[in-house]
Each structure stands twice: as C-alpha cells, then as structure tokens.
C-alpha cells in the first residue's frame, strides 16, 4: 500500500525535478525510493490489518504484495539497465512516465474493483504509449507508439463493454460482491454476463498478447527503444498477468467452464504461432517479442489449470519472476551488443563468445532459462505449469507445449550458436560499463539460484 504511494510520490517528484533543479540526484533518489517501497512491502507482509481499504477499492493481501514485490524488484533491475537511457533531455519526463506506469502496474496487482482495474490498466498503458513513441525522430518508434495506442484503446473498448455487461448482471463493480453474487446465483446468471466475462477475457488476452490478439506485440516491441521493450516484456507483462489471474482465478474461477475451453484454444494458438514465427526471425529483439508471446501462453496454462488453493498463483508468480529476470538479462546483453554496431540482428552476436565472454556467458544462461533447461529458473517455471495441467483434461496442451518448445530451443540456440560458432565481423573485444556487469552478474546468479532453490518462491503462500 505505502509502496504505491511512494512510487506515485516519486513520479510527481520526478516531474518537479526539472523545475526545482535536482535532476542530478533524481536517479539515485528513484533507486532509493524503489528500495523503500520494497521495504514497505516487506513490512506489510502477513499483517492483514490494512486490507480491504478505501471501501475495498484495492486490497494488498499477500498475493498482491508478492506480485508487487516482483514488479518492484524487476523495476529496480530495469532502472540499472536503463541508466544511460536517461542521459538526454527531458529525462524527468521519462522518469515520471515510467514511475506512473509503475503505479498502474502496482494497482493491477492489488485492484479489487472494476474501477481500479480499468484505471490501473490505463495508467499503465498511456505512459507506455508515450514511451514506445519516445524516439521522436525515429519512424519505427513513432509507428510502434501509434500502433500500440490504437490497438490498446480499441482493446479497452472491449474491456469496458465487458465491465458494463458484468455490472449490468451483478449490479456492482466490487469484485468481492461480484464473486459472492456468482456463487449465490449458481448458474442462474443471465447470458450476457458470460458475454461480459468473455469480453474481459479478450481484453486481458490482448494485454498479455495472446494469439490471435497478439499482432501488436512484435511490431511494438521491435519499434520501441530496447530498454522500453525490456520494460514492456517484464513489468507490463507481470502486471497484466497479476490482473488476469486475479480476475479469472479469484473472481470468475467458479464459472470456469464458460471460459476454460476458449482459453485453451487461445493458448494452443499462441504456442504454435509464436514459436513457429520466432523460428525464422533475424532480429533478436523481435525474436524475444515472439518468445514473450509463447511464455504468456505458458502462464495462461497455469490459469487454465485453475487450481483452487495457491498452486496456480504460485506457478504464475514463479513463472513471471523467472521470465522477467531472464528477459532483463537478455535485454541487457542485447542492449550492449546492439550498441556496438547499432543493430539487433542475430549477426550482431556472432563471435560474442570471443569478443566478450562474460556477456556471452550471461546470454547463454538466460537463453537456457528461457528455453526451460534445468537447473535454471525457466525450467522450474515450465515444470510447475506441467504439474498443474497434467491433472486436468487439457493434457494435450502439454504435448503441444513440448513440441513447440522444441522449436523454441531452436531459436534460442540460434543465438548461442552464433555466439560460439559463427566468426565475428570484427574480433576486437568491447567493454561493458560496471553497473551493467553487476546487473548481469546479479540476474544470472538469481536465475540459477531460483532454479536450485525454488522453494522460497514456490512455498511463499504456505
């Protein structure tokens, strides 16, 4: 709760920094602020006095806290990654926007009312539109921002329509009430309520970029500045999944029969489309975009398993953490590599194993993790999903997932092969700034540690 306030406060501070001339200390200030927010999260852990609040507009229960913890941690890493991204004019605006986006993300972990859901999504999205387009001279960036904007607002149209229908059926925006209403009504709900649920499903699937609502993602990811892409594929995704999970596990879990099959088909579609399309990508950045779609599909599987109790939530939490850390690593490497000769194509990685063994090593670990090879975090993430799903009637999805993830291995390993097997254009080594080295070391260790001792995350909710 306090974390939310601290971050919004930081945002406003950032805005004022330009006027009151403390640009210089802004960066450390933000880092400290995030750590402070993190600390608050810790303190609120397990003391349930402060939920629900504001007549149950948001509730920071442990799940919410855990997810905000993930988001804040990743945000911290992201700021380290992005430090030199802010080294140009109106840095303050960027800070402000990112922080406001963070506020939205935190709201999505903790919302407990359709209003806060909607506002959260918009607060998260609108700054992202701007940030995607933040390279004003760069046509790709423009296009990315523009596409994101149009598609995003179009999707929120459906989101709202769904909310409206659900409101119409249940007469409330409060998730708890909706939930109790569903359980009382047991089955005698009007048809258009289900229509509303499905529209919400569609809107959320758009946000997490699942096929066939994924088309925006690759273009936007590719067009945006790399660091922003990193932001999208980590924080935005995690937040969106927190929201998705909250809606469809906690609230609509009882009516799962109305949406599970649809979701299953969406997952299957996402798996196939994303992995197969990624196989022939030349730009690593774009490849990562597609891979993020397939990971989304995996996380959706955990939701599909719709496990009462905490298993699904655990799985999603673990998965989003593993995935975010993994992609932060890979994006950091990508960022540094592409800084060398300015393109994100796979050729840029040729001979990296010689040019900068450290970067190459970290990239290998992150690729292994994303591909789901033991003992990296990515493996456990997939493993939990499988264990959840094998108990359900959707076993065929596992088989599909395995087949497609074999394809996944193909494109992840293309990078590794390029690094160790293809000769580099120019042999000379290049240096990486210390902050990034630290970041990479941290995330890499984290990735492996998560894989070796997953219990601290997986048993977090007891």
């Amino acid at each position, binding site marked *: 709760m306090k974390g939310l306030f601290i971050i919004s406060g930081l945002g406003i501070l950032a805005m004022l920094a330009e006027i009151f001339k403390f640009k210089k200390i802004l960066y450390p200030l933000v880092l400290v602020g995030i750590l402070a927010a993190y600390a608050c999260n810790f303190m609120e852990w397990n003391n349930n006095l402060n939920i629900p609040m504001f007549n149950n507009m948001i509730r920071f229960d442990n799940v919410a806290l855990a997810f905000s913890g993930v988001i804040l941690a990743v945000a911290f890493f992201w700021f380290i990654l992005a430090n030199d991204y802010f080294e140009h004019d109106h840095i303050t605006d960027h800070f402000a926007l990112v922080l406001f986006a963070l506020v939205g993300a935190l709201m999505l972990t903790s919302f407990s009312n359709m209003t806060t859901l909607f506002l959260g999504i918009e607060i998260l999205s609108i700054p992202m539109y701007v940030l995607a387009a933040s390279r004003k001279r760069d046509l790709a960036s423009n296009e990315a921002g523009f596409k994101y904007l149009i598609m995003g607002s179009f999707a929120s149209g459906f989101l709202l329509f769904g909310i409206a229908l659900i409101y119409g059926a249940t007469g409330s925006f409060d998730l708890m009430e909706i939930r109790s209403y569903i359980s009382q009504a047991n089955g005698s709900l009007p048809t258009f309520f289900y229509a509303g649920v499905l529209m919400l499903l569609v809107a959320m699937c758009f946000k997490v970029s699942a096929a066939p609502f994924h088309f925006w993602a690759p273009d936007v990811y590719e067009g945006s500045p790399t660091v922003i892409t990193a932001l999208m594929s980590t924080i935005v995704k995690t937040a969106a999944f927190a929201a998705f999970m909250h809606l469809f596990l906690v609230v609509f879990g009882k009516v799962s029969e109305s949406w599970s099959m649809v979701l299953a088909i969406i997952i299957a579609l996402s798996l196939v489309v994303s992995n197969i399309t990624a196989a022939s990508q030349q730009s690593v950045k774009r490849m990562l975009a597609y891979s993020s779609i397939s990971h989304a599909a995996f996380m959706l599987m955990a939701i599909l398993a719709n496990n009462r109790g905490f298993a699904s939530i655990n799985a999603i939490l673990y998965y989003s953490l593993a995935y975010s850390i993994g992609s932060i690593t890979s994006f950091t490497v990508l960022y540094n590599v592409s800084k060398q000769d300015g393109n994100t194509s796979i050729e840029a990685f040729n001979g990296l194993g010689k040019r900068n063994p450290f970067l190459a090593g970290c990239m290998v670990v992150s690729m292994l993790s994303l591909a789901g090879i033991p*003992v990296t975090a990515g493996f456990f993430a997939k493993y939990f999903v499988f264990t959840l799903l*094998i108990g359900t009637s959707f076993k065929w999805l596992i088989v599909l997932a395995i087949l497609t993830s*074999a394809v996944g291995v193909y494109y992840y390993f293309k990078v590794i092969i390029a690094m160790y097997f293809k000769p580099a254009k120019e042999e000379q080594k290049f240096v990486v700034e210390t902050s990034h080295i630290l970041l990479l070391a941290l995330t890499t260790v984290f990735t492996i540690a998560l894989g070796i001792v997953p219990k601290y995350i997986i048993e977090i909710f007891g």
Partner: protein
Amino acid sequence: MLVGLLIIVPLIASLLVFFTKGKASRNLALGLSVVEFILSLVVLLQYKHNPGNSNLMLNCTWVESLGIHFAVGIDALSLLLVLLTTFLIPLIILSSFNTTYDKPNSFYGLILFMQMALIGVFTANDGFLFYIFWELALIPIYFICLVWGGEDRGRITFKFFVYTLLGSLFMLVGLIYLYNHTGFDTGMKSWAIADLYQAGKALNLSQQSFVFWCIFLAFGIKMPIFPLHTWQPDTYVNAPTQGTMLLSGIMLKMGTFGLIKWLLPIAPLALEKWGGVAIGLSVFGIVYASCIAIVQKDYKRLIAYSSIAHVGLIAAGILSANQQGIQGGVMQMLAHGVNVVGLFLIADILMRHTGTRNIDKLGGIRSMNGNFAVLFLIVLLGSVALPLTNGFVGEFLLINGVYQYGAWVAAFAGLTVILGAVYMLRSYQSIMLGERRDSAIAFGSLVSTDKLVLYIICIAIVAFGVYPKPLNDLAEEGTKLIMMNLK
C-alpha cells in the same frame, strides 16, 4: 555421505579447473578425476563390506511441498555404472593429452561437470532429481561438441540437442504423470522412486502405455534405438574425440540404465503389451546398423553404427525382462563402454598419425607398428565379443535372454555375431594389413599416453573376459533386485 562426495568432488573439480590456465588445467583435471576414481573404489569397498551402509545413501529434502528430495544412493547397478564412469573419465582425459584444445580450462571443466551429472543420473533415487541430472549431462556435452567440434558442428550439435531434449521432455511428462498418481494413500505426492514404482503398477494398461512410450522415447533417443538414431553418427563424427568417447562410452549408458531402473519396474503391463514392438525395433536396429557399418568408409562413422548395433542388442536383452537379459545388458554396458572408448581412441590415433580416417586410404600399418596392431586387435576382439574378452559374457547372456523371449528373435539378433565380425575384420584388414600405403609411411611408434590408455583398456578387456566374477556378481545382485520389482 560418501555418495554425496562422489557427486560433489567432480563439481568442485570442474570449478577449480575453470580457473586454471593451459597445461595446468589438464593435469589438474586428470589428477582430480583419478581422485574421484579412488573415491569410487572406496565406495566399492564400503559396499562390499556392508551394502546397507548409511554412507551409501543420502536423502535430504529439496522442495518439501512438491515431494522433491535430493535422494541419491548406491545399489549394485548404480555402483557398476559409477565405476565405469569414474574409470573411463581419467582415460578420456588422458587420451586428450596429444591434442591441444583452445580454452582447455573450459574443456576439461565441462568434462568434469559432465562426470558429476552422469554420476548423479546413475545414483539418483528421486525421479525429479534423475531428470535434472539427465538434462545437466546434456548441456556440457553440447558445448563440448559445439565449441571444439568439427565442420558443420553448429547444425549437427543442434540436431543432437533438440532430438535428445525433445525425448527427455516427454520423459518428464511421463514422470510427472506418475508423480501425479502417487500418494493416494498418504495424500502426499512424492518423487521417491519407490512411490513412482508403486504408482506405475497401480495404473491400468492404457495409462501405463502412455507412460511407457513417453519414457521409452527419451531412452530410445539416448541409446539410440533404430528409427531415432539419426542424430548419432553425425554427432559422433563431428564431436571432438573426447566428446565422442563421453557420448558413446558413458552417456549412451544413461539410456540403457534408464530402461532397467526407470522403465521396466514402472510399467509391467505396458511392457507385456508393447515390449514386443520395442524389442522388434531394437533387434531390427542391430542388423540395420551392422549392415550400414559394413559399407562405411569413415572409420569413426563405422564405429558409430557398430555402437548402434551393440546398443540394439543391449536394449533387446533388457526389454526381454528376464534375469539373463538384464544382467547381460549390464555386463555389456560395461564392456561396450570400455571397448568403444578404445576404438574411438584408435580412430583418433589413426587420424593423428596418418591424417585420414578413410579406411580405403589406410593400409599396411601393421608392418609399421606391430605393437599397435596387437592392441588394436585385442580391442577389436573385445567388441566382436570373442570368448575370454569382456564382450563375450554380456553378449552370451543377452542372446540367452532374448532367446527366452523368442527363439527366432534371438536368431535374428544373433546375426550381430556374424555381421560384427564382417565389418570389424574388414576394417581391420584394410587399415592394418596388406601392403603399406603412403598414408602409413609416417606412422611411427605411439605416444606414451596413447599407449598407456590402450594398455589399460586391453588389460581390462582381457581381465574381465577371463574373470568377470567381481562385476558379474554385482550385476547379478542388481538384476535380482530389479526382477523382484518386476514381479
């Protein structure tokens, strides 16, 4: 505790080696692997002294809520394979002394890391742990092949990796499926092998068949069994010699070992229904691979195919699921491990001394170096399973076991006795005998390390052919255990 040490030592060793440079790393690696070998001998003594020794069991919880334990233990079977591993790794390292690899520290580090994973696979008593080690073994060999491999290694190693990974993922599904059926009585799901056995036996035929094929796929690819083998020859040929040795000498045994410990006891019903198909594939693979070996020109590729043939027989014997078959499988694993390493070393020596592995370009080396010819001959006899060589015991028991499954199957499988002689003698003749070819002119006397390794291997071949009892008793004991679980 001791068994824990068995796994830790190579891990530490690999880390240490990573931080060395140049010659130091290979010497260090050799030393440490020897230490590991001695350690395994200590384990052997402990086991002989008291099989139930608490030193030979280690079981600490890993992820309590998921019933995952870090449970490793030494029983007769695993002991044998651990010994094989720890015996071969020093030889493999020693055999590399005449080739200079760049980044030697990572090269030897990876080998030792792989040793850790292999020992883990052989000792794991927890399904999940088994899978983890299984995959861990894959990564170092992949990089060994990718970084130090031959031409076109990018594509080939990738094929190898995806192939095996796909298989093991299916195995994971099968295991998870079992895991999901554990603990109906206790209510606590568990990965412990005993519980998996129990769960497997409780399943009905169709469920067992699902599990059977899922798991069999992984092992079949690893060994490899006939239609799943195409990754193997390319990989063997392209990998650096030490990589090939690791792959064929030890890693291949993961599959056969898995069949014994992780498939037979789990799905008895499915074995009855589908065992025939599996055996059919393996047995066909024997003849198929042998025939292909006959027309090979590249000696390394020839060995690769011969290895498929041998493994086919091993698999058939194991799948026939009787005492002789399984025990023969175990014995043959050990024999094949030693022999194939010897053969690949010989291929490497040929390459180094003559610059070619094409058997048509080679010839008359015997007249240059009779000593080498004799050693070569002994290794060769071992792999054609001549009596009083280590290969024979296993092969006899295997054919015996298969015969008990079906006389005609055994007769067909027995063709390996003939075809094996055909391609082995043919290659030996055109490499060593006849008038000396130009390629052989440079063929001087062997380097001391090569000689040493070959001598050790030949001694092992003859010694365990004449007096296999020590190994054989262990194999018998281990097999009896499995047979009990099959009941």
